[in-house]
């Protein structure tokens, strides 16, 4: 059983060896002229000179959360659609109930102003 894993073990070792060797051997041949900009974590873009003047409200997170919620609902719709003919009135009623509960949540989000971009 354990013997089956031996190639993986060899492969892991090899991966490390190749990775380290590539950096080390390359360091011997390539020219090296480091400066401050080159060594900075982000080579492009401006450095911030002061803190942001005020906090911006970001409605993105609310919208994306709502999107996620109602997107997951699709997950339940797919199998339902595929088996719609076989699931009879029973399946239809269950799905209506499910949609009703989601609808209440949707109304809540709407009423509380979660869908408005500006507050």
């Amino acid at each position, binding site marked *: 059983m354990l013997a089956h894993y031996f190639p993986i073990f060899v492969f892991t070792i090899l991966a490390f060896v190749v990775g380290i060797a590539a950096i080390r051997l390359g360091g011997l041949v390539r020219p090296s002229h480091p400066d401050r900009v080159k060594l900075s974590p982000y080579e492009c873009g401006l450095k911030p000179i002061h803190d942001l003047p005020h906090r911006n409200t970001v409605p993105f997170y609310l919208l994306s959360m709502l999107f996620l919620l109602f997107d997951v609902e699709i997950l339940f719709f797919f199998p339902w659609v595929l088996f719609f003919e076989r699931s*009879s009135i*029973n399946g239809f009623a269950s799905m209506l109930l499910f949609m009703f*509960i989601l609808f*209440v949540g949707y*109304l*809540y989000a709407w*009423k*509380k102003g979660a869908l408005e971009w500006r507050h």
Partner: protein
Amino acid sequence: MTAQQLWLDTLYILPEIIVTAVALLVFTWDFLRPKEQPVMLAAVSLLGLLIAMMFTVPQWGQEFIVFSKSIAVDYFSICLKFLTLSVTAFVIVISIPYFKKVDMWRGEYFVLLLFACVGILLVGDGISLVTIYLGLELLAIPAYVLTAFMVHDERSSEAAMKYFLMGSLASAIMVYGISLVYGITGQLNIYAIQDYIVKAGVKSDPALLVGVILLIAGFGFKIGAVPFHMWLPDVYEGAPTPITAYIATAAKIAPMAAVLRVFVVAVHPLSGHWMPVMAILSALTMSLGNFLALKQENIKRMLAYSGITHIGYALMGIVAAGVSREMGVVSVVFYFIVYLISNVGAFGVIIYICKEGGRWGDNYNDFKGLAKVSPLAAMVMSIFVMSMLGVPPTGGFMGKIWLFAAAIKTNMIWLAVVGVINAIISAYYYLRVMVMMYMHEPSPELMIEKEGAGLLAFMLFVMAAITVYMGINPGVFYDLAYKSLTTLL
């Protein structure tokens, strides 16, 4: 399963459906009429819980296994349903005077409480690992939000964040455990798992054992057993007081029921492996909770820490159930009923007394001379405290006797000794409350919450009466616990 069968099955979970419907009603009502009085929403929620309780009554005495063997309606689950519904109702009652005081009101409060209640009901019903897990999550998510309910209080947000992170980690661990158990046995139904483990002889399968250990860790987080208790003190301190009461009592029903269903039934054939682990957890939980409770100056925190201790005692019964399921389960169920009533009742008394200027009287010093200001409140508090300590005329005494007896008869004598020592240590902080109430002069600013607390006073009185009755005539509740055992196995 035919369509007709599905609709018939639905009738058996009517209490859950009713609570969900009421939650949706309160939810809609709140956002359509945002200026509604909290008392109205509370009244509707209470009415809904009462109706759900009424629909639970006709199920009594019958045993049904429905929804493709994933939900059982039996003595055990009905017993839990009554407990859950009444504790939730009580928490709603204590919330009304509390939110009048702190002036921090949002209508979502009752909705979240009701959804958490549905989660607990589902766990009580569930005999499939998936149902149990779903119920626990349905309880946990509203509980995270309720902890963060004091939006402007940093401690509340911090507590909620910790609770959320720890809780999700625990859920992940639990699901991994469930998946391993499912992977080895190929079953989700707890009875089927038990049969499979016995018949297929997989008792020492390493993957299964790892699964069981992960389950212990996951459930340990949820019930707050040491060493998985780090989130508890913060949550208890940061959450609003009624929610602390809820998390310390009702929210412990669900994981405890799950532990009973999973360890006493599903993986019981492996008891030789999980018993020592549980015994150590139990001893640690009892001792650490006790030592932390000793140095508290705040009664709310003391109750929270002593709640950890009580979970440790209850775990002792689970350990005993590894050898003798009968003794173990009966003592756990009985003890848990007593613990719930006395602990949630003590939280109720804290909300009942208050000081001028809207401050909360929840320090030991605030209880000074309560017996002179309100002899009845002091008496009720003493009954709850004595019950938690385990003094004879109360239910706590019988509960402790059966737990210790179960531990001794199953040869876990060292565990019983640890338990008794801890019971003696706990006398310090429990009796301190009584000393404060009876042996000091009252401070002039101590007063009793009158406004909107009539129902609370009545319920406190009834609960104190039940606590005493459980000590004088424990037979009724013992029968109840015994019956729930017979259907559980």
